[in-house]
């Protein structure tokens, strides 16, 4: 059966008989199409923890794929399993809060021997998340990203599309709420609004939302970056309340906000 021409190293891999990430993605899409999963099937990656949305219908199939990558160290969990596993390491959470003094998140927990322990999760910058995001590029396909960019091109004015191509982000203000959204590639969407007293623009929060799933500790979602941007854009236009309800709202000083 003739294959479609593959770019660069993938063609060499096919000639040498090696399986590539592209082959795996195509196989997963065939599985998703057979099961009627319209959003597709995310790809588990080695050394990345994939968090799925709680009601994803193909969670078992993704776990089956994950078993193939067990030797590579990939990890797939539903959100409940992820939270349960984190909680199982401790005897129980006591408290966690942000410390402006240390620019870190302070976590306090009980141990099984009855003692109380605490630790700091540094949050001075988002360098860790940014570097981890680089490792997720194997989850995406260039052709898929190009197709998503074409979709975005038809949803925004030409100068906005140019702004996105050149800078990786663009602005749009909601007529309903007056909130200005900064949609960014591979970063949470920033919500900005003018202060009533001073009139100066201030950051409300960062909205992080990934359809289907995302890779923990990164800014990467299961979809290509521009599809995540389209999801944010369409939800903000069509149902802003739902957008804010479904997204995780990060304070601007937290590294998860990506500011």
């Amino acid at each position, binding site marked *: 059966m003739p294959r479609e021409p593959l770019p660069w190293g993938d063609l060499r891999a096919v000639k040498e008989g090696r399986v590539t990430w592209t082959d795996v993605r195509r196989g997963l899409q065939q599985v998703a199409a057979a099961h009627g999963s319209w959003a597709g099937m995310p790809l588990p990656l080695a050394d990345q923890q994939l968090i799925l949305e709680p009601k994803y219908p193909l969670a078992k199939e993704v776990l089956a794929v994950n078993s193939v990558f067990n030797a590579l160290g990939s990890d797939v969990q539903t959100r409940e399993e992820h939270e349960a596993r984190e909680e199982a390491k401790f005897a129980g959470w006591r408290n966690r809060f942000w410390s402006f003094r240390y620019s870190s998140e302070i976590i306090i927990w009980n141990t099984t021997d009855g003692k109380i322990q605490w630790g700091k999760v540094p949050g001075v910058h988002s360098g860790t998340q940014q570097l981890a995001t680089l490792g997720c590029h194997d989850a995406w396909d260039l052709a*898929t990203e*190009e197709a998503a960019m074409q979709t975005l091109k038809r949803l925004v004015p030409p100068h906005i599309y140019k702004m996105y191509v050149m800078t990786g982000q663009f602005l749009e203000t909601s007529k309903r709420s007056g909130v200005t959204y900064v949609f960014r590639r591979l970063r949470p969407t920033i919500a900005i609004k003018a202060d009533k007293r001073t009139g100066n623009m201030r950051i409300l929060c960062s909205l992080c939302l990934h359809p289907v799933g995302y890779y923990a500790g990164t800014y990467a979602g299961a979809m290509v970056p521009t*599809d995540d941007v389209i999801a944010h854009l369409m939800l903000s236009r069509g149902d802003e309340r739902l957008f804010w309800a*479904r997204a995780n709202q990060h304070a601007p000083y937290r590294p998860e906000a990506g500011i």
Partner: protein
Amino acid sequence: MTDATEGIAPGECRILNVGAGDLSVSFDKNNVSETIRARRVIKDMIRRGFALLIEVERDGEKRWERAQDFDEATDRYIIADFDPELAAVQDAQQAKPRVDLTEEYQASMAALNDRRTSTRMAIQQAKESEEGTDTDEQGGERAEPAADTGEKEGPEGGAEQAAPQRRNKRGRPPGKRLSGVSAHATRAVAVGRSAGG
């Protein structure tokens, strides 16, 4: 199901997909099988909790709104038939400002004080006239406050004011008002359930 790379055409629903690029289903009157498949896919996506954003036109302006449901019999997206911005403006116009409530309160308190004053004066006059008059007037005078209570009126002009239209918390009129938008002429984008981030 077509794999389109161009813009979203009228009658087309673009589904954001994880790995294969954005998939499309279309309501094409010339392609019955594709239309039947589109109905099944749209209905299934709504059942699974997908957010279906469709382009509608209100007052000559195109905007995106979320479809609440899909009518397979008529191929129509069901949307909420109210404009959130207009509802907010109407709510603001119908809501009573705080200064009006203050004036009503002050007016009612002034009327109460007037009644108290008149009653006090009547009692005083009755006491002064007790020296040379009957006590029946005092009893008659005492009945006044009770009569005033029974005839208590609301704020000035309150009875003439028409009751404002009852609205629920979201500013919509009572009852669910939904309307349908033809899927054959509407562009749509479907976004799956999210896992946060």
